């Protein structure tokens, strides 16, 4: 099994009540609540945590990014990846991942990742994500072309890594007349790619088609089983057998001297209105065109849920469409089944 350490790098220093009053803790939640002094302290704390994680022997450190959100201070995962590339010695740098559609120039992304791979001496795992709905809005990227941009940027990055330049790329969303990045990755043919996700069927299918491992993020046991079923069936269609090496899972674990302390620790960890990613606003988290058309057909109740939220109503200019905070209690002594055994990545 390959064990990785992950923190969202939350900004724990803002008034909780302000979030509750506003009704959402992302996108339009004002950055007047951000405290750069606390931010500076926290960023450095996180570096210390990462160094300790390596010291105690985790196999990898997972990084991600979000925008306009107190639950994640990483606005650019590549920055911490670069820091870790220079400061750590052994851990895999597992990016889960770079939001491809947010890139206006995927070649720059390919260059940055190639640099991280070389500086870390081949320790990069370059995961890619679509980015949540509100990430598109926070960066001004059109949510209606999210999946198209994801697939096209992926193609361009992989080609920039593997195809000898110079060449020309004329896509629907990306056009680059000269693709010839001087820096290319150390790992060949290119750094391993893992795809994290929550529920999106299309992403699971796409990952299985590419033979990229799929990392289920904190999904329920039932959902997780369905994810592996779907992945394996697509793998069979493509012509390989899906196995543990194709599977990853993110779970929140709280360890302490005794159960009581662990539960208390977990409660404190979940202080942010009890939500994994703060208080969501359905219209921002699922902008029109971001999800699949199936959402409209009412599959899994997604759109109906959105409607309900919309119907609660509010004044224009308000965050609107409020959802009551649903405190999520830590689950005692439970884990998502026996841990999947992941093959240790081949030595580089």
């Amino acid at each position, binding site marked *: 099994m390959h064990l990785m350490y992950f923190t969202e790098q939350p900004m724990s220093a803002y008034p909780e009540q302000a979030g509750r009053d506003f009704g959402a803790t992302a*996108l339009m939640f004002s950055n007047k609540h951000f405290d750069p002094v606390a931010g500076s302290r926290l960023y450095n704390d996180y570096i210390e945590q990462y160094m300790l994680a390596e010291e105690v022997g985790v196999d990898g450190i997972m990084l991600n990014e979000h925008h306009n959100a107190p639950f994640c201070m990483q606005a650019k995962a590549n920055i911490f990846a670069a820091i870790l590339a220079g400061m750590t010695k052994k851990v895999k740098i597992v990016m889960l991942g770079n939001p491809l559609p947010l890139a206006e120039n995927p070649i720059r992304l390919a260059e940055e990742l190639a640099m991280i791979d070389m500086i870390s001496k081949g320790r990069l795992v370059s995961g890619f994500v679509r980015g949540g709905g509100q990430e598109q*809005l926070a960066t001004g990227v059109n949510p209606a072309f999210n999946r198209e941009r994801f697939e096209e940027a992926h193609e361009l990055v992989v080609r920039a890594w593997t195809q000898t330049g110079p060449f020309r790329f004329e896509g629907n969303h990306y056009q680059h007349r000269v693709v010839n990045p001087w820096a290319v990755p150390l790992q060949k043919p290119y750094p391993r790619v893992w795809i994290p996700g929550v529920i999106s069927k299309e992403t699971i299918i796409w990952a299985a088609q590419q033979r990229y491992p799929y990392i289920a993020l904190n999904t329920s046991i039932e959902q997780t089983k369905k994810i592996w079923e779907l992945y394996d069936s697509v793998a069979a269609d493509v012509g390989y057998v899906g196995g543990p090496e194709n599977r990853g899972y993110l779970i929140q674990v709280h360890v302490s001297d005794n159960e009581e302390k662990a539960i208390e620790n977990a409660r404190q960890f979940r202080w942010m209105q009890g939500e994994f990613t703060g208080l969501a606003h359905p219209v*921002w988290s699922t902008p029109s065109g971001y999800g699949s058309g199936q959402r409209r057909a009412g599959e899994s109740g997604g759109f109906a849920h959105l409607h309900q939220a919309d119907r609660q109503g509010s004044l224009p200019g308000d965050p609107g469409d409020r959802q009551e905070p649903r405190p999520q209690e830590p689950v005692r002594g439970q884990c998502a089944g026996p841990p999947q055994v992941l093959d240790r990545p081949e030595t580089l």
Partner: protein
Amino acid sequence: MAGVDWTDSAIEVGGAKLHLKRAGKGRPVVVLHHETGTLDHLPFYDALAAHYDVLVPHHPGYSRSERPTWMRSVRDIAVIHRGLLSDLKIKDAALVGLGFGGWIAAEMASMAPADLSYLVLVGAMGIKPPQGDILDLAITGYIDYARAGFHDQKAFDRLYGAEPSIDQLEMWDICREMSFRIAWKPYMYSQTLPHLLGAVRAPALVVWGDDDRVVPQSAAARYVEALPNTRLEIVKASGHCVDMEQPEALAKLVTDFISQG
């Protein structure tokens, strides 16, 4: 104005399949609807159909017209609608553009067709307002956004119901996605349109609700400045959707303007 006999037809123009509603006799008047799509029947449409041959094409990707996935700009819609008028052999049409439809109408007029008779722009998007910003669909709830178009919420309730149906919300979502596909950045305006409007030959009327919270009234002045032959009318007690909130007042403004020639 009950009893107006509307016909429905599906017409293929260029790379788009359009749904067209049509009623009445006389001078052709083309009404271009909002980015929230259009209801099938509106008192404003009926009022115009009492005097004119009224055509309400559903924009590609909105309401009952299919979404052409290739479209990338509002000008694409304007070209398709120009094609529709040519296919239907409609000459000397007057264009009445409502909000987002006003942008489309302005784009159509900017192509300087010799046979355009009148141009009416009502709370038109398409130009960057010198003061204020056009309300952002992307961060506003479906109902909040639709309601923002009304000065008096009772007018909204009468048309959509106090609790709009799931079908209506779904339709707003479909329309919203199309707006993102063609008007995402810059959001709901063109940087070149103001410079093209100088070529418009037809007389124009610019109408704005006095309580427009969707498109700031400052944009009205910019339209008046850009169009060679135009005047401005402000409708009292009206939000952005003048056609839905003050249908009689707007119909009167339009008919008076068109009958002047």
